[in-house]
């Protein structure tokens, strides 16, 4: 292919006590692409996230990021510093820190204790923070503790933190989970906005949401790719209907 793929999973296998969570999973993600990954519970969606972000080491297989970086050799912080951001299913933010501090810690920059011990907030950082707060619609809440935010607001804060990291690739796990329809729509909008500048992988159950995204879909089942294609192609795919939509 002409331009290099952004992410390339090559025959990745992960097993827990004999149970194969991922089974020879292979997948290609182009730069700038947004991809929705769906599949029944235990299909290996979250495990896939784990292996990409270095939380879980695959038993076999390679995960190539960009031209030639093998992610399976790196640990989470290293991978994160390469520009891969991850959002958890349950919004995980730093509850006792203020919204602003949450974003501050996420801002790209030196992560070493040596730096942070003496770090002062630069004007540039200040500007970035204001921009982010605006993007995720939390300007009012800037000095409240994250713990006091609503569920949806936490989701956005976490997304905001991802943006602050300025990653090349975002992995987002069930962003619409537990959101009102309005929030869901807004979130889809937000994601498309993000996708203009970055590649995104979204995991979700909610077909309405996935449809709203209107992007290429990968269906996982029992740890490997069952089908891939547009939403309509998927919905007509007999296997998919059988294992997933059928239920």
């Amino acid at each position, binding site marked *: 292919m002409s331009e290099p793929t952004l992410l390339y999973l090559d025959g990745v296998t992960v097993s827990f006590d004999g149970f194969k969570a991922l089974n020879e999973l292979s997948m290609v993600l182009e730069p700038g692409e947004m991809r929705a990954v769906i599949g029944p519970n235990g299909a290996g969606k979250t495990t896939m996230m784990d292996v990409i972000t270095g939380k879980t080491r695959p038993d076999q297989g390679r995960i190539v990021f960009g031209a030639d970086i093998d992610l399976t050799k790196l640990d989470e912080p290293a991978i*994160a510093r390469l520009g891969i951001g991850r959002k958890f299913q349950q919004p995980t933010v730093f*509850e*006792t820190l203020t919204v602003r501090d949450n974003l501050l*810690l996420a801002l790209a920059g030196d992560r070493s204790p040596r730096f942070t011990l003496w770090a002062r907030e630069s004007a540039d950082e200040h500007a970035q923070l204001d921009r982010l707060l605006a993007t995720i619609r939390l300007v009012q809440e800037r000095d409240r*503790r994250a713990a006091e935010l609503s569920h949806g607001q936490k989701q956005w804060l976490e997304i905001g933190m991802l943006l602050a990291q300025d990653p090349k690739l975002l992995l987002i796990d069930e962003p619409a989970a537990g959101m009102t329809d309005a929030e869901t729509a807004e979130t889809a909008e937000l994601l498309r906005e993000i996708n203009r500048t970055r590649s995104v992988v979204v995991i979700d159950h909610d077909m309405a949401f996935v449809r709203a995204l209107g992007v290429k879909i990968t269906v996982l089942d029992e740890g490997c790719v069952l089908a891939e294609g547009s939403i309509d192609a998927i919905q007509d795919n007999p296997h998919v209907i059988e294992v997933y939509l059928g239920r």
Partner: protein
Amino acid sequence: MRLDRANIATLSCVLGGAAVLAAMNLLIPAVSPLHVPDFVIAIAGKYLCYAILALAIDLVWGYAGILTLGHAAFFALGGYAMGMYLMREIGARGVYANPTLPDFMVFIGWTHLPWYWYGFSHFWFALAMVMVVPGTLAFVFGWFAFRSRVSGVYLSIITQALTYALMLAFFRNDMGFGGNNGMTDFKDVLGFPLNRESTETGLMLVTATVLSLSFLLARAMIHSRFGKVLIAVRDAEPRTRFLGYRPESYKLVVWTVSAIIAAIGGALYVPQVGIINPSEFAPGNSIEAVIWVAVGGRGTLYGAILGAMLVNLGKTWLTSALPEIWLFAIGGLFIVVTLFLPRGITGLFTTRQPPKGSKQASAATEASMREAAR
């Protein structure tokens, strides 16, 4: 480092209180009812040392979520380093009048000083060792532990094992640290006779100052961006990893700093109580110190100081007032505090959120425990 009100308040209490006690001891004639006897000065100094230990523990437990059950080990190591200096300072005034060998070495029939005692005749060297030895131990221990992501109860247990092992080691007479009897019968420090009232008062004031400085240092750390990351680690360690931070290195820094603070506390403790021996390593001591912090209020540095003061005050009073049953009282206190004052005494008066860290971390451990039940 800006001097916000928390600092001013705490500092004025510690330093002011100490100064007042000192003045009431030295300036007011003994006949006056306002006179503070030396006994009170001595125990005040002792409590201030405990407060330093508590502060060190709160730094790692309150802000990095590391529950250490072995911090007394660093305290005791600092104490031993100071004790070695004080032993050498005795010189030929020991009962055997041996110019170089401390009494206990003559006593177990050693003929010359072991190499690791060299240099301790110099105060500056001893002072350096007070920080270097525990610091190094903490660094090495922490480097292994945090890098391999030992956390939660596992970490607590191995810190306990660490101090327990050190206790057994120091009990051995062959170690050359006085075995079970440890070191005692010190004469003077930097030429000041230890049993002179002015020296006792001086040491108490020095301790108060050191406590204040450590407090400022700790505040500075947790108010820097470093401190924010630390709290982030406490609240949601995996998240910090996915943000590109290495929690292990953050924990390692704060752990080592905390160990050194504790060690300095121990070094000040020894000349004031006049003895250092292996029972200072006993796991029970570390747990008790953690409880001071819990009583005072975890995650607020002044709470640790307050807790250490009050619990020990209570202990001193109870062991004389109700010698037969004081354990009921002190044990009951620990239960009551953890049950009804989860945020300690200071928690009663602050409007702050409780440190969520404990909840989440523990929720995680619990989850894994639950899973473990399979």
